Structure formats: C-alpha cells, structure tokens
C-alpha cells in the first residue's frame, strides 16, 4: 500500500511551528527532507537494511514527539541528526549487551573479505568496488563512537564543527576521534589483507 504524503509548501520554520501543535501533515512535509539521510546514517551504523528501517522510524517518531524541545539553538538538521546518532549508538550498545553478533563475526567463516589485487597500487585498489564493500563491512567492526565519526565525516562530509554540534562533543574530541577512527578503519582493512602491498606510489 502506498502513501501519498502531501507536501506543504511552507518555510521550514513554519513547518516546525505547525508540527509542534501536532500537525501530522506539516510534520511529514518537514521530515521528508531528512528521512533519507536518517535512514542512511542508520544503515551505515548498523550495516543492515531492516535495522536501519526500524531505527529510522523510531527516530522520526522521537522527533515528532519531542519537537517541542527543539529550541532553534542549532539548525533543525543538526538536531535531527543528533537524535539519529544517539538512537543508533544506544541501539548498538543494547545489542552489545545482549551479545547479538554483527554481520561479521568470523572473517573466515560467515563472510569472506575480498582480497584486493596485490599488483594494484593502493589508490587503485581502494577505488575498486570490492573495497567499498570491504569498507562498509570493516566499518561495522569499529566501536560505535568511532563508527559514527567515519559515517559523519568521511561518508557524509560534515565539517568538524557540525559534527561537534551533532554529537555535542567539543572540537578537540571530534578531531582526535576522527583521527583515531580512520586509523582503526585502516587497521581493519589491513587485517583483512585488503590493501595493496606496494609500499609507495611516487
């Protein structure tokens, strides 16, 4: 069953105001600019479409429920992605407590990390499709607090300052976590023998 969401042509501020009064139509118009990104952040964080679906629905409901608490100190988008990140990280934490394994538990068994062509230079190797896939999977091996850094910074290209606002952590922490997250991701890729071994280019 499909659903036509009528898009109201109001400025965002007005849609926020109407949503605060519980106006569903206004809220749907408001959230439609964000829902795909919400879903994709959840997808990158969990590596699973169904989980991403559940999380992003929950995020949208939370936003509707708590929109009265949005004070306009930050942009609406920042607030939306803050809720998204928080829900994702909480969810991942809960799972860890319940010991539900992620997609990759055993690189030799369940899933095999594709091995890059060793004759290729690193740059070329990384550009291959297999490597994008490898990144997607290796990302899931990182702790959520580092994973979210790669998602926001390297997949979506947010600036340090925006990330600082979204995650509500200071700039120094953002910088050091990004540095660390990248190092960890690189280590994961290397551990899976995904890198070209050619020591240098140029």
């Amino acid at each position, binding site marked *: 069953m499909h659903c036509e969401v009528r898009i109201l042509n109001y400025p965002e501020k007005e849609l926020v105001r109407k949503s605060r*009064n519980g106006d569903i139509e206004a809220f749907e118009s408001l959230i439609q600019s964000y829902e795909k990104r919400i879903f994709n952040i959840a997808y990158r964080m969990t590596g699973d479409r169904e989980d991403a679906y559940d999380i992003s629905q929950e995020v949208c409901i939370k936003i509707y429920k708590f929109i009265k608490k949005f004070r*306009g100190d930050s942009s609406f988008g920042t607030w939306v992605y803050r809720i998204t990140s928080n829900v994702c990280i909480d969810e991942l934490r809960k799972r860890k407590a319940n010991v539900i394994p992620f997609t990759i538990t055993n690189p030799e068994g369940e899933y095999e990390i594709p091995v890059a062509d060793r004759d290729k230079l690193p740059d070329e190797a990384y550009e291959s499709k297999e490597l994008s896939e490898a990144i997607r999977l290796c990302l899931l091996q990182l702790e959520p607090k580092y994973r979210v850094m790669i998602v926001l910074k390297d997949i979506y290209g947010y600036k340090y300052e925006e990330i600082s606002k979204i995650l509500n952590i200071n700039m120094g922490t953002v910088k050091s976590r990004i540095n660390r997250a990248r190092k960890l991701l690189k280590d994961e890729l290397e551990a899976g023998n995904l890198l070209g071994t050619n020591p240098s280019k140029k």
Partner: protein
Amino acid sequence: MKCSDAEKLLSAYIDGTLNDDDKAKFEEHIDNCSACRREYHIMNAMIVSCRKLGDIDLPENFRHDLHERLIKEKRLKKRSIYRFIGKYKALVAACLMLAVVLGTAAGIGLFGGSPKRSASTAQSQKASGSAKDEKMISNDAKLFSAPSSPALDRKSPENGTGTANSSDNFVNVNISKAEYDKYSKDIISFIESIEGQKISSTPLQYTIPKKFTSEFISKMKDSFKIYDVMVTPADSAPENDDARPKGESAEYKAIIQININE
C-alpha cells in the same frame, strides 16, 4: 618531525585543517619517509572510497508506515495530557492558590513575560488602552470564529498588567461568574500542563507560548463548553516573522485574559 608526530597530523592534513607551519613540516616529513608517505596514500584513498559509498533508497513503505505510527502517536499524546491533568489536579490547584496569594501580595503581575520587554512595552500597551484591543478583536474575530459572537458587543475589560507585545496573540475568554467558579481550576490546570511548569501570572491573566493558542481554544470549547473565546492573532501582522529575533519564536506569547461577566 618524528613518524609518531606525523601520524597524529595525518588526519588533519588530509582534511586541510593544519596551519601553514605544521603543513610544511608534515610535507617535508612524508617527502623523506616512505612509510609515512604510504600511510598517507592509503588513508587518503580510503577516505575517497568512503565518500563514494553513496546512499541507498528509502524502503517503499517507509512513509506509509511512518504515517500510521504518527497517527497512533498523536492519539497517545492527547490521552496523556488528560491523564496528566487528572493526576495532578490537587497539586496544580495548590500551586494556583500559591500563585494567587503571591500575585495579590505583590499587587502586580511581575511573573508574566520576559523582564526585558515588560517595562517598556507595558507602558505603550497601557497607553494605547483597551480601545485598541477592542478594535483588534472586532477586526480579527472572523479569523478564529467563535460559534457565538455576542461577545463582540461586550466591552473588553481592562487589560491588567500589560506585558503584551505586538507579536503576541491576545485571547479573551468571556465567561460568567458561575462558569468561572466551576471551571477556573481546570482551565488553570490545562494551562499548567501546556507550560509544564508552575503558573506565573495574575489570577485573570495568563501567558502561554503562542504556538499553543489553537490548542487552548479547542480545549476551552471541547472540554468546558466555553465558546466565547476571542483571539486577536498576531500572525495576521505581516511584519511579524521578520521581526522575530532568530530562534526566539518560543518567547512569543499568547496572553489569555479571562473576563468574568457578572
């Protein structure tokens, strides 16, 4: 520069956020150190690949499912407000009594509105007097139609303490003494539930965030059968939106004035 230092700067170098000095040192290092140069190339390529991951499409049923859940959520929300009022009736009444006592003691409503604008605008509001309000009401009453409109002919009572701003809604609730005795506590409970905090007002005038105006009116009509509610919506003023300070829309109020007709 040591390799360990270069490693720390690598991320910032790729993002282009190093200062000129560090940048020059870093470049000098990777020109001479093949291991770090390799790290740099790998890291750089990895980041390029991340950027290429791209988005996947929303599931087809996403909006439909969300719509259904929003409707459920809205129903729940409504119910919880009523439950809240029911549960804390006594507490709310006690707070109200306190507010009344304090308000009377102070003689004036120091509680309502933000201190910034109360002083100056209070003056101007008083100066223009109730004639202006009367005019506003009769002009705009049609926008928020009250089923019975004999109140248009009634004289708008004195404004009380004027903390009103031109961007505020003004809500006149006209009720009889009997109605007031019967419903005042419930009305105040409701205002309290909107505010989520203690009432800060004088007995016959309350301030709520403007965005709740329509909720307030429908509550009056639906729950208390008080139809004689008149709104002067500030939204009708064209300059309104621009005049708002950024991000401060929550500060704009609806002033609720209860008028008791003997």
